[in-house]
C-alpha cells in the first residue's frame, strides 16, 4: 500500500508571524518555519499503519508543496521514519489559495498513485481545514476526516470522530483520504538513528510542469479570494490585577462582573 502524508511548511507559531506588505500574503520565506505541528499526527498515523501491516511493500511518502525552505518539512517526516519525500516547488505557486493548493496536491497524489492519503486536521497558519475535502472531491475518493482514533482493517478504514453533538464511527474503503486530529496519537520524536537515516532517503523535486499544470492555474493570479486589508489587532489595554493574599480576590472579581453588567 502506498501511503502519502500531505505535510505543510508553516511559519513558526511561537515566532513573529506576519504578512508580506507588497501582496498581503503570509510571509513564508522571511521567517523561521517548520513542519506544521498538526501534520506530525498525520505522519505518526501513517507510520503506525505501515508498522501494523504485514511488512509487505507498504511505504510512506511525505508530500509537500511550498518554497525552497519547505524541504525542511519533508526532512522532518523522513527523520520520524517515512521512506521517501516529494517536494513540489515552483515560483509560480506563491500566493496559491486552498483551491489551487488542492489542485497541485491532487495532481501529485495521482502521479504517486496513493492508496491512503493522510492529512492533519488543519494547518497551524491558515487553519481553514478544507484541503482534505477538496482533494477528496478532485480525486473522487472517499474522505473520512478528523479522526481521533484510526483503524485500518484490510481495505476498510474506520475512524472515531468526536464531533460537537455526537461521537461517530465513520468508515470508507481504500483508496481514501483520511485526516486525523491531535487526539489521534502521540507523534514520535526523530531518533538519532532516524536523523542519520533520513539523509540517505530519496527526495524528488517536482515542478508544475512535472504535474502538467501551468502557472496560470495556480498562484496569486489564480486565487479566487483577495485580501483587501490586513490590520494588526490593537494590543489589549492593561487590565486591573488584584491579589487574593488578603482573601479579597473573590469580592473584587464579583464587583468587576457587577460593574460590567455580567450579573
Amino acid at each position, binding site marked *: 500500500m502506498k501511503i502519502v502524508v500531505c505535510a505543510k511548511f508553516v511559519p513558526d*507559531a*511561537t515566532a513573529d*508571524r506576519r*504578512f508580506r506588505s507588497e501582496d*498581503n500574503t503570509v510571509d513564508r520565506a522571511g521567517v523561521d518555519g517548520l513542519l506544521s505541528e*498538526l501534520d506530525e499526527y498525520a505522519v505518526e498515523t501513517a507510520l503506525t499503519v505501515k508498522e501494523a501491516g504485514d511488512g509487505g511493500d507498504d511505504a510512506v511518502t511525505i508530500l509537500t508543496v511550498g518554497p525552497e525552505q519547505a524541504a525542511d518539512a519533508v526532512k522532518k517526516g523522513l527523520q520520524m521514519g517515512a521512506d521517501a519525500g516529494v517536494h513540489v516547488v515552483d515560483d509560480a505557486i506563491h500566493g496559491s489559495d*486552498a483551491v489551487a493548493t488542492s489542485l497541485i496536491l491532487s495532481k501529485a497524489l495521482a502521479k504517486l498513485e496513493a492508496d491512503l492519503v493522510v492529512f492533519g*486536521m488543519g494547518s*497551524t*497558519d491558515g*487553519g*481553514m*481545514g*478544507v484541503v482534505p475535502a*477538496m482533494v*477528496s*472531491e*478532485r480525486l473522487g475518493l*472517499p*474522505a*473520512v*476526516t478528523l479522526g*481521533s482514533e484510526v483503524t485500518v482493517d484490510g481495505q476498510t478504514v*474506520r475512524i472515531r470522530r*468526536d*464531533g460537537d*453533538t455526537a*461521537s*461517530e464511527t*465513520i*468508515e*470508507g474503503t481504500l483508496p*481514501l483520504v483520511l485526516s486525523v*486530529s491531535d487526539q489521534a496519537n502521540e507523534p514520535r520524536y526523530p531518533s538519532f538513528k532516524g536523523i542519520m537515516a533520513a539523509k540517505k532517503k530519496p527526495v524528488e523535486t517536482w515542478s508544475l510542469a512535472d504535474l502538467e499544470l501551468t502557472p496560470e492555474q495556480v498562484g496569486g493570479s489564480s*486565487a*479566487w*479570494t*483577495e*485580501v*483587501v*486589508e*490586513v*490590520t494588526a*489587532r490593537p494590543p*489589549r489595554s492593561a*487590565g*486591573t*490585577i*488584584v*491579589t487574593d*493574599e488578603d482573601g479579597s*480576590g*473573590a469580592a473584587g*472579581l*464579583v464587583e468587576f*462582573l*457587577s460593574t*460590567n453588567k*455580567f*450579573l
Partner: protein
Amino acid sequence: MSNVLVLVDHSAGTVRKTTAELLTIARRLGEPVAVFIGDGVQDALPALGQYGATKVIALTNPDLSQYLVAPKAEALQQVAAKIEPSAILISSNAEGKEIAARLAVKLDSGLITDAVDVQAGPVTTQSVFAGNFTVQSKITHGTPIITVKPNAATPEAAETSPEVEEFDVTISDAAKTARITDSKPREATGRPELTEAAIIVSGGRGTGGDFGPIEAFADSLGAAVGASRAAVDSGWYPHAYQVGQTGKTVSPQLYVAAGISGAIQHRAGMQTSKTIVAVNKDPEAPIFELVDFGVVGDLHKVLPTATEEVTKRKS
C-alpha cells in the same frame, strides 16, 4: 434582488442560533433562501420566517443524512444551479467547512472560511494568527461561498411567511462512499453551547482535575464550560469543550480562564473575547497580559467564594 443561499443548521428541525445569524447576514447581501436538509422542515419554518427567509427549499433524500458530507455538497450544487445565488452562506463548523470546500471545487468558486463578519460586497472579516490580525477579503471568482462563525451577527427579526418547496436531488454513487456506521449523541449538559455562549468559564491544569468549582461558577453566571488542552489531555474534561487552536474558537462577551497559563494555542481560541478575566496563582502567567481583570490566587478558594457571592446577588 439576488438570492442568497443559507444552509440551515438544525437538529431534527430545531434551528440553531447560527442560522438566525446567517439569515440576518444574508439580508445584507440579497434575499435569503434557506436550504433545509433532513426531516422537520415544518418545525423549523417559524424560526426561518422570523429571520427573513423568503423561501425554504426542503431536501429529504435519505442519502443526505446516511453518508458524510459529499452528498450534501452535491445537493447544494444542484440547488445552486437552479437558484443561481449571488452568494452561499454556511455555518463554520467541521461539517459546514467540508461542504463548502467541496462546493467550491464543484462550482469553481472562491471560498472564505471562518468569517467573523460579512458586509455587502460581500466583504468578509476574518481573525487570523491566533487573533493577532484582522483580515478583510473578497471573493473574485464564481459564486462567493462563505462559512460564518457563530456570533458573527446579532440576529435581527424580519418576519416573512416563506413557502416550502420540495426539491428532488440525485446523489451519485461516488458521493456515497464514506458511511456513518454508529453515532453516540453527547449527553446534554443543560448549559449553553460553547461557541454560542455569552459567557464562558474555562478550567486548565490548575484545577488539578476537579472541575467542580469551574462548573459551579459557570452555573451561577449561566455560562458554558470550557477547558484547556492540558485539562482535556489529562482526561478531566471531554475534548468537545477544548478552547484553542485545535479546539473551539470562541468570542464571548466574557471569558473567564481559571488555572490556565495562556499558551499561544489557547489564546488562539479566546483572544477575541470582549472581556477577559483570569484567576491564576502565578502572577507571571502570560494570561494576565490579556486580561481586563485578574486575580492572583488559588482558584479553589477564589471561585467558590465568588460563586456564593454571585448567587447571593442574583437572588
